[in-house]
């Protein structure tokens, strides 16, 4: 059975570094072939809002979109 990693993200995208950390960990886990999940709870769900125009720090929606394309499974 392939190893499975589940990340839990409960902070909003632009007040903390957790979004960036979660993206980097997910990226590395997917690159190693792990089944990778992310559960977003509380303000964590704002990471997945459409139409974000954030600049000057990692873009949450774009970053997660590209990870979802690579196989990240997200539950809100």
């Amino acid at each position, binding site marked *: 059975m392939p*190893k499975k*990693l589940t990340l*839990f993200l409960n902070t909003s995208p632009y007040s903390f*570094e*957790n979004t960036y*950390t979660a993206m*980097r*960990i997910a*990226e*590395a*886990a997917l*690159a*190693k072939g*792990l089944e990778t999940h992310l559960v977003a709870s509380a303000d964590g769900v704002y990471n997945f809002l459409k139409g974000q125009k954030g600049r000057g720090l990692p873009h949450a929606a774009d970053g997660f979109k590209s990870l979802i394309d690579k196989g990240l499974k997200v539950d809100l």
Partner: protein
Amino acid sequence: MLFLISSAPETKEFKTAFNLAKDINADICLLQNAVYASRNSNDSSLYVLLDELKLRGINENEISGKPIDYGRLIDLMTETDKVVGFF
């Protein structure tokens, strides 16, 4: 067991997590603002995320821990029996 610690060294969150990890002999990986702790520590057993050091202008030779990349972190997380994330 592996503890992931992200809070800045002066915070209560950092101290609680760090002391608890030491108490139960868990490995520690520092990320986010916790990496600053590696500058003032002689503890060579600490894992420290290299990209987070670089982001903060800290040179590898300023620290006593083991700088690692995210790939190595995933290995540590999958090799250990449990990951405790003090995010």
